[in-house]
């Protein structure tokens, strides 16, 4: 379905992957409302290989969103380098355009790329069924549930055709049941449409269930506390002891090690 992009399959044995995203020694600051300069990130080095899902976890305000904006080229770092294939951002809020139907929102990137409206809609419509959105093509964003809106926003990001997807807490605003459903769905969607993904989340379990690697950031200024491989077969079970062990490792890196603290 997704032609025009040569993407490597997600199984790590199938290729010797090159880097899609390299963040090397990046420092970044921003100004708060009073104009004071605050360090968001310091000495952050991360990378994601082609077709990999890199999860970035960290406490609130550790510069995760800044990191994604750097990767997407919306900001430049104060120091360090970022090498990255073209990246599309799925922001924390879905930011669907209220005046467009779900279908037109999903197809927005294609319209921006000057594709004819009919073609753009046809391509988006093809994916609607796969994402469980059939029948809602003409619905406007206010008529959709939170989970559906996130799926439309994800589709919009996917249809940008960019090899790297930056997902900023895509399920953070959803209730626990919907979130679990959406995690399963994201995993399946990426198996069908493989991309390099940088997933920012504050949910450690979400990170280890979905990711190939998990980078743990400290509180502000964010620096990398741990970089964990998740070399487990998919689909993963949340009760797999190896997964639980990794989750525990990530929690320890966050300073939340005690088993009862979560």
């Amino acid at each position, binding site marked *: 379905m997704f032609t025009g992009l040569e993407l490597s399959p997600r199984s790590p044995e199938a290729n010797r992957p090159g880097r899609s995203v390299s963040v090397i020694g990046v420092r970044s600051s921003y100004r708060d409302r009073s104009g004071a300069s605050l360090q968001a990130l310091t000495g952050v080095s991360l990378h994601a290989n082609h077709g990999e899902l890199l999860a970035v976890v960290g406490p609130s305000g550790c510069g995760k969103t800044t990191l994604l*904006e750097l990767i*997407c*080229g*919306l900001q430049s770092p104060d120091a360090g380098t970022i090498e990255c294939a073209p*990246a*599309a*951002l799925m*922001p924390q*809020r879905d*930011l669907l*355009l*209220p*005046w*467009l139907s779900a279908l037109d929102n999903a197809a*927005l*990137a294609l*319209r*921006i*790329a000057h594709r004819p409206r009919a073609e753009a809609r046809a391509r988006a419509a093809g994916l609607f069924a796969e994402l469980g959105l059939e029948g809602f093509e003409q619905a*406007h964003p*206010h008529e959709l549930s939170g989970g559906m809106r996130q799926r439309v926003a994800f589709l*919009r990001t996917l249809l*940008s055709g960019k090899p790297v997807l930056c997902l900023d807490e895509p399920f953070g605003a959803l209730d626990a049941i919907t979130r679990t459903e959406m995690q399963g769905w994201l995993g399946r969607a990426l198996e069908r449409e493989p991309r390099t993904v940088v997933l920012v989340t504050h949910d450690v379990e979400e990170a280890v269930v979905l990711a190939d690697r998990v980078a743990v950031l400290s509180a502000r200024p964010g620096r990398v506390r741990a970089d964990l491989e998740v070399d487990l077969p998919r689909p993963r079970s949340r009760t797999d002891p190896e997964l639980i062990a990794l989750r525990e490792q990530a929690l320890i890196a966050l300073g939340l090690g005690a088993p009862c603290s979560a």
Partner: protein
Amino acid sequence: MLLVIGLLGAWEVYVDSSSTSSSILPAPHSIAEALWGNAGLLGHNLAITAEEVGLGILLALALGFVLAVLIHVSPLLRRAFYPLAVGSQAVPIAVIAPLLVLSWGFGLLPKLVVIVLICFFPVLVTTVDGLAGVDADQLKLLRTLDASRWQSFRFAELPAALPAAISGARIAVTVGVIGAYIAESQTASIGAYAGLGREINSDIYALQTPRAYAAAVVLFAFAIVCFYTLALAERRLAPWANRP
């Protein structure tokens, strides 16, 4: 509705029980009679005023919208136009209306100028706010999708500004009716048909007070109809607006 009936009833009772002459304060029933008896005349004059106000509002919408977009996209044009636009609202319309009539005659043009001058400003202000109110994150997102400046405008800012502009026009339509009245007051009567404003003035001079009130009632109803027509237009054109 009950409020209107109550007020009219009180008015009727007051006029009937006091010895006020109907040429000073006519009772509702005599206004109703004047309304009925002069339906043709009032209808013709309404058509004239409605044309002025309708055209004037459309022109004011267009002018206000275009100016708002210019102000929005260019800080230079903002500095150039905004103070002028604000200043234009301080010009006493009652003073310049006769001057406009002097230079452009008794036709439609000077009336349109007065109405547009009054009405473009609310449209301008609400549209500028509507354009500026677009979520900064939204524009950021469009940039990551490689949208050009024009595409950001077309997909995000323009649709956001549309209901704002119509809201401005809803504010404008009520003052626009006053503008029409002022402009018409300055024109000499050409035959009997010169708009409701002219009608009100000549009736007052002729002590045809019930008819003047009847004309005012028509103007009143016209303003309400315009207001709700624009509200309807807003719901049609921008069904996403005013949703939680």
